[in-house]
């Protein structure tokens, strides 16, 4: 059993991510965020469950659907919103945008708009950690779509060969944009594929944040103790919003609201809310709302990058 304090931590993180993204969706039609936002609403439990099992010096790599794990791992909210607004104070000085959030100080090492590309980067990072005799671990987040790409398998192979301290987290929300996994793979057998590389693999099929956290924590402990190499989790989850943008998309017809219903009913934000005391909940929510409000004000007020930034950071000299 987990303690109340932990539930409160989890709830704070879940609620914060949910509310940040709801605010992004609210602001979006104002065109102040000129960035293609890929919302994680509905999927937050994976990011929070995983990142709550990590230390600050552990490192995560991810995808353009980056808000949830960025925040869950401790990424700076102000810098994130400023980045979405394209401001000079953004985490990438406005040169990354929503799809390239980074917060190296908090172990968020980057995200890519090209599917699958950060997986080998994460593997290389894990190789370096091993060589440097550190006991940090790496988490590689990616969607089910990335499991179509060859580089995923090349990465698994190398990680297994070298027994690297890395955890692969596939957020399987069933779709790559509008195309179902079963239109892309003959069978939905991701864990089977991974096990064939000699990598233990486990499916967590219900978006259960507590289960995700517990299982990942167990594996992290093993990796830190240098017992065993990579591990793979397939976390089934569900994206409530459209692939990119702030809206619902059940009218498009590629998926039904029926399909979504069980996931919406199993919403982990609501679930955790019910596990903590009402006054704690109120306190958390008030604090988070305040933080978000302040961050939005900041993002709106801050300046755009100056012209000379155009040619800065291309190379180091």
């Amino acid at each position: 059993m987990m303690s109340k304090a932990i539930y409160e931590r989890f709830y704070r993180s879940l609620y914060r991510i949910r509310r940040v993204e709801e605010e992004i969706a609210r602001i979006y039609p104002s065109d102040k965020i000129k960035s293609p936002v890929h919302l994680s609403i509905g999927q937050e439990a994976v990011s929070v469950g995983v990142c709550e099992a990590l230390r600050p010096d552990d490192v995560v790599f991810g995808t353009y659907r980056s808000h949830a794990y960025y925040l869950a791992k401790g990424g700076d909210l102000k810098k994130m919103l400023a980045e979405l607004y394209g401001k000079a104070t953004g985490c990438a000085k406005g040169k990354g945008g929503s799809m390239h959030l980074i917060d190296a100080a908090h172990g968020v090492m980057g995200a890519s708009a090209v599917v699958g590309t950060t997986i080998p980067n994460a593997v290389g990072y894990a190789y370096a950690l091993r060589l440097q005799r550190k006991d940090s671990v790496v988490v590689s987040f990616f969607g089910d779509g990335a499991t179509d790409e060859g580089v995923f398998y090349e990465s698994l192979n190398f990680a297994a060969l070298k027994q690297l301290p890395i955890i692969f987290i596939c957020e399987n929300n069933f779709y790559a944009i509008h195309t179902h996994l079963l239109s892309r793979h003959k069978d939905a057998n991701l864990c089977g594929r991974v096990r064939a590389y000699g990598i233990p693999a486990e499916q967590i099929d219900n978006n259960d944040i507590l289960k995700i956290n517990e299982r990942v924590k167990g594996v992290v402990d093993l990796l830190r103790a240098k017992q065993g190499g990579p591990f793979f989790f397939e976390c089934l989850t569900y994206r409530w919003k459209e692939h990119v943008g702030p809206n619902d998309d059940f009218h498009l017809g590629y998926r039904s609201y029926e399909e979504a219903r069980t996931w919406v009913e199993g919403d982990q934000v609501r679930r955790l809310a019910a596990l903590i005391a009402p006054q704690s909940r109120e306190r958390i929510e008030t604090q988070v709302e305040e933080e978000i409000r302040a961050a939005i004000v900041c993002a709106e007020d801050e300046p755009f990058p100056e012209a000379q930034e155009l040619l800065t950071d291309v190379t180091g000299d």
Partner: protein
Amino acid sequence: MERILSYVDAIREATDQQMAEDPSVVVFGLDVDDPKAIQGTTRGLAEKYGPERVFGTPLSEEAMTGAAIGMALAGLRPIHIHIRMDFLMLAMNQLVNVAAKSRYMYGGQVHVPMVVRCMIGKSWGQGAQHSQGLHSFFMHVPGLKVVAPTNPYDAKGCLIQAIRDNDPVIYVEHRILHFQKGIVPEERYGIPPGRARVLEEGRDVTLVGISHMLTECLRARCYLETINVHAEVIDPIWLSPLDIETIVKSVKKTGRLCVVDNGWTTCGASAEIVTRVIERLQGEREVVVHRMGYAPATCPPTPSLEDLYYPNARTIASAVYDLVKGGRNHWLPEEREGLQEMEFRGPF
């Protein structure tokens, strides 16, 4: 009666007509059969021609490009679609090492009739990895053809031509050009490689615009007219093979060349065009040249930097002004309302 279609519909029509006439044409790529249907360019094709000839694929750019080559070797005419040109980086081995080389390295025993449709993105925070115009890579490699139509008429004609062509063709679209409307005849027609088009005549300077930058060149021409500088605007259409004659002829007249690319300049299409013109005219005609393109940086999503990253009508006009007058004059025309929306609508 002039028939007006969008660039998107022109592509759809070209595909539809070629599929109807030739059962060996197949269309595939990520999401070609999904509700968005690649901006509408593949709308209805899956229903009409069935899922064997029109199908979405896994996210496997390298293998699907390789598969396209295999299909072409077996007698099909595949059209493989990518919603961003940036993703072709995953398929370079198949494109450069296999598709481009098969005809030659097998001594002409085979050929690879395939079309690779790919889109350059711009604005709305496309940023580093969704905005590249990498056509110069494909121009560099013998055995590939490259085309970048800038209007609906050419979009249709070049696609038909590309599908009929027996070599691999990289067909470069631009997301902003998709919104263009223009005259598009209903019948099937091809726009053959190796013929550039002079869109506007002018005596003072030759402006060559590639992909979306052609539109900016046309707008720049309007700014320049107000100060009595007359630009001849050329659309190369096909980048490989490249019709350098038309450009040379124009520069012979104007003595000035400005090439504006939708990509980086270093080792880019603009370097190539400048060099070829110089090679042809040296000793014959004195010329001054200028090239423009993406700033030598990664594409920044924030509007304040993105505006500076791309050439636009006003910065092009300003550069041309310097080319004509000599020296640095710091002339920059005031933004003009009507020009923002200007579209070139033909007829041709």
